[in-house]
């Protein structure tokens, strides 16, 4: 009988106030064990202070074929970046 433990995606928040970041995956029978396994597998070198796990099948992902419509429209909105604006140096820090 096929009885493989489900696959979980692991997200870890490091020491310096950054967001949780995807670090990898692992197998575990349930969420509690997934957190423990993540602790043992992905924080062996003092990498984290907080762990999230989510079963891989519950992750909804954007489709690669939508890359154009999803991301390219933002490329032309250059005015959203601070470097778009020339501010004279004498104005000081801004």
């Amino acid at each position: 009988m096929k009885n493989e433990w489900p696959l979980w995606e692991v997200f870890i928040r490091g020491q310096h106030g950054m967001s949780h970041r995807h670090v990898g995956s692992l197998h575990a029978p349930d969420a509690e064990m997934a957190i423990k396994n993540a602790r043992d597998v992905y924080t062996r070198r003092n990498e984290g202070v907080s762990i999230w796990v989510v079963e891989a099948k519950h992750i909804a992902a954007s489709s690669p074929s939508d890359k154009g419509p999803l991301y390219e429209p933002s490329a032309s909105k250059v005015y959203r970046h601070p470097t778009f604006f020339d501010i004279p140096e004498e104005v000081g820090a801004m």
Partner: protein
Amino acid sequence: MSTAVTSGDDALFEFLCRMGDSTLVLGHRVSEWCGHAPVLEEDIALANTALDLIGQTQLWLGLAGEVEGKGRDADKLAFLRDGWDFRSALLTEVPNGDFGRTLMRQFLFDAWHSIYLGRLLKSSDKRVADIAEKASKEVSYHLERSADTVVALGDGTEESHARMADALAYLWPYVGELFAGDAVDAAMVEAGVAPDPASLREEYDALVGRILEEATLALPEGRFAHKGGRDGRMHTEHLGHILTQMQWLQRAYPGCTW
């Protein structure tokens, strides 16, 4: 052989060897799983437990050597003492058996270890309290993990339940030794260094009973206890084999730097 306690330091040395030898021997046993566990995640977790135990050994035996004051460091104590000078609890010496027995042994030891270390946090000897401080964090995790696994395997399938029941029956007679006090313990209580082992039994039984119930296993009724590890009077036959392996390089090539 049986401990003639002549001074406070002798008793303290004995006490420290009891702590360090148990973590050493159990760490050795757990490390035997490396590369052979039922699934990668468990392989990695067991190695973490073994690493913690070896690290604790370095601290306990390091302090033991210091207290003894004869120039023996943790390595000399670990690799150059004979079996009768070891003070490991018998529970730590028994063979791993299957994964279920290994985890049951781990749980029975972790439960004692966590309660005992909890008391050592208040030790009158700051060096002991400091080691306990570091070790107790590691051991809380060991206990959490081994308890969860015992529950899962006890409750899991008919086969796993039967295996866990067998493991418990095999290991239970080795539990009592952890709570049998002697002159060394009395001296440690007197000096405020460590608690009376017997005083921890009630808390232990409550903790173990709660987890075993969750695991659909019954707390064994028998109170018979094999003894002789903590005082070195009579170890298991297994210890000799462990030491033969562990100490071989140091014994065969004395005085080398590795």
